[in-house]
């Protein structure tokens, strides 16, 4: 209605010939408008104007069991984009330092240098939220929570070699507020490894993490 009146007024302004009836109507309406309508901007709301919070960024810390070597604790960074309430894309980057392997201790393998013990990885995964719901702590606390699974691929640098790595895992996330959450997850990093020219095989490196993340 408003826009119709505006159009009529505008076209009247730029002197377009109008049907007489419409002109009468617009005249009376514009006069009425001035009397009745308070001087107030009536805002139209669009979904686009809303602040969206689909990105998540966080840190985690966890233990990785590196096949054939002593495992280690290490930190990591995580970023995610939430596609829908079900699906998300995530990227992780983390570092560990491998301990001694039994082959190094018992002889047979030359020792790796400190630099070669550096285990760094990144991966890009598609995730799915499985069981959204609430968890209850005592009588008066209820937090939103979800169980999730992830799967994807990435790259691992270990013993100064690059390895194409498949990664998959599952986790549990609990929301303290709607924008900060704590998650616990377990992941597996699978790649084919050849160590110093020996022992070519597929390895599974299991990892357990705890992390904090915020939405923005």
């Amino acid at each position, binding site marked *: 209605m408003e826009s119709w009146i505006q159009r009529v007024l505008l076209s009247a302004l730029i002197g377009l010939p109008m049907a007489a009836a419409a002109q009468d109507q617009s005249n009376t309406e514009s006069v009425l408008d001035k009397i009745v309508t308070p001087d107030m901007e*009536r*805002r139209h709301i669009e979904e686009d104007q809303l602040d*969206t919070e689909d990105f998540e960024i966080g840190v985690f810390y966890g233990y990785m069991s590196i096949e054939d070597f002593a495992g280690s604790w290490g930190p990591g960074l995580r970023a995610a*984009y939430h596609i829908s309430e079900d699906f998300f894309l995530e990227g992780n980057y983390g570092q560990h330092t491998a301990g001694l392997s039994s082959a190094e201790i018992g002889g047979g393998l030359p020792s790796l240098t400190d630099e070669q013990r550096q285990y760094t990885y990144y991966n890009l995964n598609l995730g799915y*939220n499985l069981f*959204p719901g*609430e968890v209850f702590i005592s009588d008066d606390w209820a937090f939103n929570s979800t169980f999730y699974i992830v799967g994807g691929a990435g790259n691992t640098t270990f013993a100064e070699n690059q390895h194409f790595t498949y990664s998959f895992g599952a986790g549990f996330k609990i929301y303290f507020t*709607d924008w900060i959450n704590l998650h616990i997850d377990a992941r597996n990093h699978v790649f084919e490894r050849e160590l110093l020219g020996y022992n070519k095989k597929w390895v599974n490196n299991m990892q357990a993490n705890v992390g904090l993340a915020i*939405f923005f």
Partner: protein
Amino acid sequence: MDDAYIEMRTGPGRGFPVFHVVEKGEAITLLKKRTDWVKVKTKRGQSGWVYRHQLALTLGPDQLPVTLKPSGRDLYEDHSWELGLAMGQFGGVDSLSFYAGHRFTPNLQMGFSLSQATSRIADSKIGYLRLQHQPWPHWRIAPFFELGAGAIHSTKRSALDQPLDSTDASLLIATGVNIYLSRSFMGRLEYNNHRILTSRDENEEVSEWKVGFNVFF
């Protein structure tokens, strides 16, 4: 509120419980959005999440329903951002790529890609700035043509060859199809031809096939 009632949930998802109902005529404040859910606050100060489609039944101060963004197939034809992952074969070596792009017009998109291709003896890290042209952006299966410029860092280790560790400029010609799948997903199938401008006498040419998906928003 112009509907009989809307349901407020404790979280942004259909799996979270409904804990409150807003009646027709009640005023609500819209706070923020996450995926398809909008956080609202009632006059009495209760806040919860409502499904975005219910906003179409909510009147703004101008007595008109809230204008919703397009979604699904409409958004596919009218989106402005893309993020994607792809896996492929870069000259016979497993590769993984990440892509991010912004669409300036329905036909023209600019973005960047980061890839890594790894085998037992060689490793390449590739970064490109890319320009994509889609002649028929409204098709469900839409072909595209792409040009890119960037750099490639490769290391090679082998007992037979000279070890190699070099960074070279590289040019890209790519073609493929985007396939609208559902919601905000599209599949992407592409062929990339890399021209690596080496410091050696001749330039190297590498072919790469990729399959992946992009999400758009």
